[in-house]
């Protein structure tokens, strides 16, 4: 693994007049070539500040950002542009430029003052468009593209810049789920196939955990945690990071759920997809699925139809759908809770 970016004893934050606000400190981490890294963290933890500091737009309070063994904040804008490219959240208004012309702007750090493109530049542009699967968009005017298509073109443009590192700040923020998945898959593929290091900040925990080679987790006022998504789940880092946010992290489902005030246990038996989705429904409802509990849910096949059997205090009820099971289980819980308070 070759580190391309190294953060050394980095402290980030703002200086306003004489007041210094430190957002995060003692950051020591490396970004490797060929890897997709997702930066996660609750709002206000300083994700954007860290991204801005790494991309050279903001000076660090302490420490250094090294890009290819050179200090980022000492490089000229042009030198930096040849090694590092950006994709941002903002919706680009590029007048009447076509997607191809926008991607071509990525060649600017490599062209002379006239901005004239050589055949080699055109090749690189074409390759970038091809890599991002945007061939059909190339001739269209950028303003006529959908948000997802537009972000794809901005990624192609960042790629045409021939950088070592691509930094993407919340680029999926305004996209719907299929588009988000598409962009993430694309970035993962780009990192692996082209050997570029890609750092992406996002709010989309689930997608980040499914796509990233490495997660950088920045909790509020805390230390940056680094590791494979699974490592961070297993060692409890995720739970710790979001503990104050009113949600809890479920290690089994790998998802966040609303914090329960009262833990209710359910014993679930059954197999296959139905059992999996029943479990999700129960968890959504705030139940904890365990191996042994007083309250039992069974998924069985009866007359070629799935049936859910809820057993509580030796009383059994049958339901023909998860929806009905849920309303049934809600009722029994209410009566149990009432009984407990009396």
């Amino acid at each position, binding site marked *: 693994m070759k580190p391309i970016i190294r953060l050394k004893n980095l402290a980030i934050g703002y200086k306003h007049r004489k007041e210094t606000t430190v957002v995060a400190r003692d950051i020591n981490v490396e970004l490797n070539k060929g890897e997709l890294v997702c930066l996660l963290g609750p709002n206000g933890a300083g994700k954007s500040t860290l991204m801005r500091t790494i991309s050279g737009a903001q000076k660090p309070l302490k420490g250094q950002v090294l890009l290819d063994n050179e200090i980022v904040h000492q490089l*000229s804008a042009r030198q930096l542009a040849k090694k590092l490219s950006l994709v941002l959240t903002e919706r680009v*208004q*590029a007048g009447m430029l076509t997607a191809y012309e926008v991607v071509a*702007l990525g060649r*600017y750090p490599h062209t002379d003052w006239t*901005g004239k493109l050589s055949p080699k530049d055109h090749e690189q*542009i074409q390759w970038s468009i091809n890599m991002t699967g945007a061939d059909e968009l190339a001739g269209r005017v950028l303003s*006529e593209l959908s948000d997802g298509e537009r972000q794809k073109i901005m990624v192609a443009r960042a790629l045409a810049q021939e950088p070592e590192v691509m930094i993407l700040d919340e680029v999926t923020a305004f996209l719907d789920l299929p588009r988000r998945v598409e962009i993430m898959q694309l970035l993962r593929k780009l990192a692996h196939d082209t050997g570029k290091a890609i750092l992406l900040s996002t709010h989309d925990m689930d997608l980040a955990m499914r796509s990233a080679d490495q997660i950088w987790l920045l909790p509020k006022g805390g230390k940056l945690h680094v590791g494979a998504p699974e490592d961070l789940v297993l060692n409890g880092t995720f739970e710790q990071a979001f503990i104050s946010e009113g949600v809890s992290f479920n290690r089994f489902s790998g998802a966040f759920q609303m914090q329960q005030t009262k833990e209710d246990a359910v014993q679930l038996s059954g197999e296959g997809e139905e059992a999996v989705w029943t479990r999700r429904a129960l968890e959504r409802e705030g139940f904890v699925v365990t191996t042994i509990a007083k309250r039992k849910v069974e998924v069985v096949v009866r007359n070629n139809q799935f049936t859910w059997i809820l057993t509580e205090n030796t009383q059994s009820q049958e339901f023909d759908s998860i929806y009905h099971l849920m309303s049934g289980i809600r009722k029994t819980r209410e009566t149990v809770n009432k009984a407990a308070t009396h």
Partner: protein
Amino acid sequence: MSETISPPIPQSKSGIRLSSHSRMFLFPILFVGTILFFLLELGIGSVHIPISGVIAALFSLEGADSTWIKIIHELRLPRTIAATIGGAALGTAGLQLQTLFRNPLAGPWALGLTAGAQLGVALVVTAAAVVGSSFLENFAFLGNLSIVSGAMIGCLLVLFLIVGISRKVSTITLLIFGLMLGYLAQGLISVILHFTNQSQTKIFAGWNDGSFAGVYWEHFPVLLPLTISGLIIGWLMAKPLNALLLGENYARSLGISIRNSRMITLASAVLLAAPVTAYCGPILFLGLIIPHLARGIFNTSDHKILLPAVMLLGSLIALAADLFVHLPWERHFLHLNAVNALIGAPVVMWVILKNKRMRGFEL
């Protein structure tokens, strides 16, 4: 394998757009059109001179009518050149301002630069009147370098103000601010003019009407170097302007120095707008509408195409407007700004209706 990759033909939902080939075809057409209006402008007036006579007189060929030579060389040629330069300069300045401020309705006039120049000129005229210079005697007050300096300083001051607030406010707010600066300047001007005598006020009023007719040969040694250097500097900035189409954050990430690009381009806009305003008076609408027409005709936002396009189109439209003004009307002369408003106002309305950003609240 030697096949070269060429950019795809731009398409849009509304059909195939112009390819770069047909774009290149438009330049000769515009060029010929400009030459044609140049000659028409020389030939048409209270004394009608046929095109052949114009060409003969222009180059002082043998057998050319001596009266015609005199009319063309002394009266019509300066005016025609002024219109050619003025249109190109204002169109270029308009394009620069629209891209820099990311504002489709920006222009030397809309942002108050013209008003700043007007105020500067008014101050110079008043100062001259108070000090009691010999300005009036030879009617040469417009030819004086101090007028240009006044216009430039006024223009620059307004520009600093506009740049200062442009980062903090929305597109619409900036335009309203520019408009208010214009009114403020007008108010100040009428106060200032109280201190001058009547005849000087009259001269100022004449200048304030805006016309290419007030330019004479002796003005060109100042007008030409300034505007031509402005145009050249403008052309050199095509690349950063293109990058700025993506917004400042992206432009910076492409290695463009935002600060330098802004400063140089704005300096160029002042070099273009201020001298033209100083010698021709405030000319409305041209700087605003020419970039839009150029984008519409060439179907692109690429400054490498737009910069030469606004120059040619600017000259063409300024010549056409001025020609319309001095057609041998039977009663009295039209004002240039009236003609500009007739062409310009509908274009502005169209831009507002077409542009989603201008229409809604999502700025």
